[in-house]
């Protein structure tokens, strides 16, 4: 377990909510930000703020160095071979939409198949629905095992000669399932399909290596890994990105602009129209530095211990059902559940009155809720700053809710 001292890096955790010390168990929605990230953003605005890639002046140079330095930080974080393969986006959603609209529109045609799973987040469903509607392609879903995991056999069975894109989350934001992305990528490539990875829930917790995974695209968001909102990154193989057209046009992304025709900058800037998210990128790089200074392996181990403890304790609450893998070693720091006789909204309100923040609802996964045959669930998600005491407070709140609604 990580030392509790880590909590001192997160000023927000030191407060009372509804008369109780805050227990924040909603990091899968967004993580809290350490002082190091808040200071990096403040420092940028206080000392270096200027537009990038154009100023001859000193501040312009500093801002450009900060922004492009952040790209190098992301490259190393993902072990990509070149910063040309790192495009800054507003987040995972924007990145997935970019792939669907640019790569998808150019490469997908009628009868082609796009393969996703029932566990996907809406952001990895709707861009493909839209692409399928626009091109006449077919969107197909891989069924899940009874415990909410994926079997490689079912992945293989779902592949056909028409499969052109396989897109999948690395870690489920509801079930906590960790999908075998490397093996699935091999299967996709054996059928000449490209592999897209939604790493929004993986990047905060697991060491990523895009060269080892050999995926074609991978997207993640800064705000889930201790960084600010409004920034994320898309990794794409250079050969693919080179062939792709931008989907946003304007300043920053152009090479030459004529009256009736224009040309684009080289990679990665052709995908970054408009003044970029400079402070966001610098903040996200500070967040990556922060979690790497602690160690992703250490964070992952900490979460595994917390989840194992949480599942064990939660099972002692009568009428509590946990969704997803029963083996806690098979899941990331996420526990989604329902308490018999208490609707998740009511549960979240009771917990909030006790200072415990959890998420209630469909978690942007309506097809998965349907698969689970529930209309809503409650979710507790853990990160590096959570403790066993947080779990105890959750369980105490669950018992209280049970009693209150009896």
């Amino acid at each position, binding site marked *: 377990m990580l030392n509790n001292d880590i909590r001192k890096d997160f000023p927000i955790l030191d407060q009372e909510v509804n*008369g109780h010390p805050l227990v924040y168990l909603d990091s899968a929605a967004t993580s809290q930000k350490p002082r190091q990230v808040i200071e990096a953003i403040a420092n940028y605005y206080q000392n270096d703020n200027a537009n990038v890639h154009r100023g001859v002046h000193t501040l312009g140079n500093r801002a450009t160095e900060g922004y492009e330095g952040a790209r190098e930080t992301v490259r190393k974080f993902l072990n990509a071979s070149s910063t040309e393969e790192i495009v800054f986006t507003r987040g995972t959603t924007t990145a997935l939409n970019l792939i669907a609209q640019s790569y998808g529109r150019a490469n997908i045609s009628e009868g082609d198949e796009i393969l996703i799973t029932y566990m996907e987040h809406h952001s990895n469903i709707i861009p493909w629905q839209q692409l399928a509607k626009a091109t006449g392609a077919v969107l197909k879903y891989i069924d899940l095992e009874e415990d909410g995991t994926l079997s490689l056999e079912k992945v293989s069975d779902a592949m056909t000669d028409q499969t052109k894109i396989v897109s999948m989350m690395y870690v489920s934001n509801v079930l906590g399932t960790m999908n075998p992305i490397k093996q699935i990528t091999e299967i996709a490539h054996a059928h000449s399909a490209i592999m897209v990875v939604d790493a929004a829930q993986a990047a905060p917790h697991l060491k990523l290596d895009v060269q080892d995974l050999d995926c074609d695209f991978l997207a993640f968001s800064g705000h889930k890994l201790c960084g600010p909102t409004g920034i994320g990154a898309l990794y794409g193989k250079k050969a693919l990105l080179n062939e792709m057209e931008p989907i946003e046009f304007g300043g920053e992304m152009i090479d030459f602009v004529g009256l009736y025709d224009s040309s684009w900058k080289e990679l990665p800037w052709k995908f970054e129209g408009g003044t970029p998210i400079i402070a966001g990128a610098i903040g996200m790089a500070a967040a990556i530095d922060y979690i790497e200074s602690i160690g992703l392996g250490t964070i992952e181990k900490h979460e595994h211990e917390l989840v194992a403890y949480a599942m064990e304790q939660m099972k002692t609450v009568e009428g509590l059902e946990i969704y997803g893998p029963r083996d806690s070693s098979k899941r990331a720091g996420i526990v989604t559940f329902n308490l018999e006789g208490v609707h998740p909204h009511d549960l979240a*309100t009771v917990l909030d*009155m006790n200072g415990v923040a959890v998420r209630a609802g469909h978690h942007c996964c309506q097809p998965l809720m349907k698969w689970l045959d529930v*209309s809503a669930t409650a979710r507790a998600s853990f990160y590096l700053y959570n403790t066993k005491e947080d779990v105890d407070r959750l369980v105490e709140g669950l018992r209280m809710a049970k009693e*209150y*609604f009896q």
Partner: protein
Amino acid sequence: MGNEKLDQLYRSVIMDHYKTPRNKGVLESSNVTIDMNNPTCGDVIHLTLQVEDDIVKDAKFEGEGCSISMASASMMTQLIKGKNTEDAVTAAHAFSDMMLGKDIDDSMDFGDIEALTGVAKFPARIKCATLPWKAMEKGIASDSE
């Protein structure tokens, strides 16, 4: 742990309607059917009304949701039965005002429904309470078209 604040939200009359909902089911004789959901949380309501000569003769609901949304649906159907459609819509507006913490017209006799005033103090739950009322308003508007 103090339950006082929770008790303001979950008044006994609300819990009673949640546990023993009135007018639960589907009206065979309905001429107005409305499905509505709250996309942020997954609450759903299926409301059936029998409207004749601008009078709500009967109302039933089916749905899935939290105690607040289901109790609100139960109380709403009780209130509108026998009312003319104009009064039902006026009540829906008054209910919205109540959820925003505004004072409502004294002439509005909400009875048990006033137990839901506590919801105004829980901003995240207001949409739960208003869902059935919005469904009813939409249904009546569609009927008069």
